[in-house]
């Protein structure tokens, strides 16, 4: 077995673990570190449920190997709420009924956070393009778009 020790900063905590080269980053995050907020939907890079911020960029963690992330700084959905206080995006998702089953929600939130971090006042079209890589089979997307627009209009730090 080909293993290597990697060091990764996730949500401000430094993790040092041995991984096999073939281990996907999303499996490392969920199964090795038990940060199970990041979901595996399709395993083929289509659904976006596994979206995380990797050195600041939104990426799909099922299309990366954990070993590639050695030395990286990562944020997952667990980074959003602080001390029981929902992140403004999470609050808006709750208020606008932007989730039903909730499976896509962590990925949607990370994709939305990536958008608002770079573009705090997006147009509706920009929101649509930002979540294009994220599939939701419950909501028809309308309430998700409304929630991101609502969070943006409040102008709070996201």
């Amino acid at each position: 077995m080909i293993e290597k020790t990697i060091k990764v900063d996730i949500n401000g905590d430094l993790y040092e673990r041995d991984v096999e080269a073939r281990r996907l980053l999303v499996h490392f995050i969920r199964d090795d570190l038990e940060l199970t907020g990041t979901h595996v939907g399709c395993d083929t890079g289509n659904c976006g449920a596994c979206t995380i911020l990797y050195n600041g960029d939104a990426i799909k963690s099922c299309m990366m190997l954990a070993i590639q992330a050695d030395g990286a700084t990562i944020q997952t959905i667990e980074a959003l709420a602080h001390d029981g206080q929902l992140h403004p995006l999470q609050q808006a998702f709750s208020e606008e009924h932007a989730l039903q089953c909730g499976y896509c929600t962590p990925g949607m939130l990370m994709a939305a956070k990536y958008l608002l971090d770079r573009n705090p006042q997006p147009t509706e079209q920009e929101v649509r393009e930002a979540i294009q890589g994220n599939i939701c089979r419950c909501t028809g997307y309308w309430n998700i778009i409304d929630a991101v627009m609502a969070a943006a209009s409040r102008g709070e730090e996201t």
Partner: protein
Amino acid sequence: MLLREVEYARPAGIAEAIQLLSEHDNARALAGGQTLINVMKQRAAAPDMLVDLAELEELTVINATGDGTLELGAMATLADILSSREVAERRPILAEVASTIADVQVRNRGTLGGNVCSNDPTNHLPPLMVATEATMTIIGAGGERVVSAEEFFLGVYMTAVAPGELLTKVTIPPAGGTGDGFASVTVGSHGTGIVNVAATVNGEARIAIGCVAAVPVLVTARPDDESVREAVRTADLDPPSDVHGSGEYRRRLAEVLSVRAVQQGRSSG
């Protein structure tokens, strides 16, 4: 476990990368991984060694030279192309096309080199490379060589990059009054191509049609609509039929999209 066991190396320089690629029989260069990791899950590819190019920062550079030539490192991501001032000034069509590839997350990881080296016949960039007369710089143990885009794309998933070699750079010649265009019909707004066409117009229209054969098909014509339509009609295209469209439908699309791409080229020159 989805993937077969594999070795992994992250070389610090191009020479080391070439050495690793040539030393191992079944080694693959890993760029953004947005195709390779997925085909490894399906075991359609099962390399013994992955040579991760992530540390080769010199390959991410996008440069414009004095005469208007655009040099793009093979590891430039699609997102890099989208945000590049040099691309916006010299050849905005590259950013326009890059923006229609997949989604935000994939564009953040997916690279120019990966898109052209995977050479999926439905990819957007191969026809654009052929239409713009791009040249590709390939480095191997024997040194560096430069091939034209037309010679680069050899077959489905096959390019001129041989085992032990690495695509390092894509060079787009100066626009010099050339107008660029691109038109496609895809599955969904940014999905798999059914037919895509890139065109440049500079006196003559140079049209590269994707998704209709193993490699982009090059057609040249006078740049008026009827000449373009006639040239594509008489090009004897024999596109494949699949779940997304029949060969006959693709042949018809090739005509229509060639006219649209050339129209854009005429108006942007």
